[in-house]
């Protein structure tokens, strides 16, 4: 096996491992022990690589996205079509704990929140949001990997938007429906410097 392919497989499996570790409790909740799942995925990847007619796998920045939707279903949030809102730099995480990863994104520039935002990690979210690039233009926040966000997290997002100089906006991508409702209920939705991008990247709701 070529070294490059081996490296690719290892990287792929590592990301899956990381995801399964972070979400072990969720899987267990619905009766899925993660160890057999891990072995199954490893076997499947190996079988796939050995298949001669298979083309080389396409490199992607965010493999865990493929798993974001089923997990969202577990916690009872509406499933949405998997869309890549931003290009995530997984290898340069800003913050990581057992339930949340904050990763920088390029194209458009900003950050992605993946997992749960709650009281224990809201300070990290606040720090990441205040440390956003200070250059001109809009700042983008990819929430398509968000599984849960409490009001403290929502407040951190709103305050970050308000802290931007006039004319710049914080653009939210892939906002879970639940979060959008919470924004409306607490009267935070109509803020001049906070904008919610619609289902297609680049198109924004009026």
């Amino acid at each position, binding site marked *: 096996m070529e070294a490059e392919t081996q490296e690719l497989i290892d990287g792929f499996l590592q990301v899956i491992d990381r995801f399964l570790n972070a979400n072990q*409790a*969720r899987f267990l*909740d619905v009766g899925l022990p993660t160890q057999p799942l891990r072995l199954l995925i490893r076997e499947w990847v190996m079988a796939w690589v050995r298949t001669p007619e298979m083309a080389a796998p396409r490199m992607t920045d965010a493999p865990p996205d493929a798993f974001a939707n089923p997990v969202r*279903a*577990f*916690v*009872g*949030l*509406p499933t949405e079509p998997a869309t890549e809102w931003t290009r995530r730099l997984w290898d340069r995480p800003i913050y990581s704990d057992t*339930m949340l990863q904050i990763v920088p994104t390029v194209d458009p520039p900003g950050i992605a929140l993946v997992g*749960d935002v*709650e*009281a*224990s990690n809201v300070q990290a979210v606040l720090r990441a949001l205040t440390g956003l690039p200070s250059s001109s233009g809009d700042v983008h926040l990819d929430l398509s990997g968000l599984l*849960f966000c*409490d*009001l*403290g997290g929502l*407040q951190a997002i709103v305050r970050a938007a308000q802290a931007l100089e006039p004319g710049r906006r914080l653009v939210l991508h892939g906002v879970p429906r*639940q979060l959008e409702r*919470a924004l409306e*209920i*607490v*009267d*935070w939705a109509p*803020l001049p410097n906070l904008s919610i991008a619609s289902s297609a990247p680049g198109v924004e709701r009026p």
Partner: protein
Amino acid sequence: MTATMVTNERGFRHEALLYAGIDQFVARTTPFITGALEADEPILVVVSRQKIAALRTAVGKDADRVQFRDMSEVGANPARIIPAWHTFVEAHAGEGRRLRGIGEPIYPERTASELVESQRHEALLNAAFDGEPDFWLLCPYNTQALDPSVVETAHRTHPVIADGHGTSWSDLYPGVAASVAPYDKPLPEPSALRATLAFDAKRLSAVRRLVSREAASAGFMTRSIADLVLAANEVATNSVQHGGAAGTLRIWRDGGVLVCEVRDRGHFEDPLADRRRPAPGQDGGRGLWLANQLCDLVQIRSCSSGTTVRLHMHRDRSR
């Protein structure tokens, strides 16, 4: 006409109107509505759909100048009624006109828990609009359909009572301060618990998972699960941030209702905290407001030894 006849004073006038049956209801509320229209006073009527239809017929062509809202939508959770009145009062602020309202939050279809919270709501109204510019709120009570003890409680929660023959001060009304005194009457204990979990700041995710699992196994729709998880997480977060850093979650079923209870050692100062619309610039303090908007009923009991918050969610939510 007796010596205790109440004249139209200024300020907030919170009046219970006793009636027996729909015909008396219409006969006793219609003059109040037409009186408002004649005096060009804005009026909002929040009653059942059936009563709205009857009042539209009775008032006739001028009914379009009356705002009507369905109490089963506005006040399904009685804690949402005061914000609705606030919106009405604010919309007419500074106009210099007296405002009128009719609100019937207490009706026979209320469950025992809903009734208790509706009575609490009636008491809190006295503080919520104390000192407001002229607002005359009439609360009809159907003596034919309600238990006599419920009608007696109306005398405790309303300073003014009307019965179709006259209007008088209630002898049982304890005043504004006593109306909002801490509500520490104990809640009934559940017969069978589904789950109990002691939590602290590190175990909020366990709170969410347990609520999610119980709601799912009770057959809730995904949106209701997500709503309940969000509300329970906020209440539990209050416990770890303001309620002694820890709390206890208990979950049980009561017919088609799932109840999530959070207890902690904290204490609530402001009895109207959960029904004041949060200002956009305010930091924190939105958890209970959100819980009231998301849940079918929220029960709060607070005294010096601790606070209990119960979130009720119906399995079959059409509202």
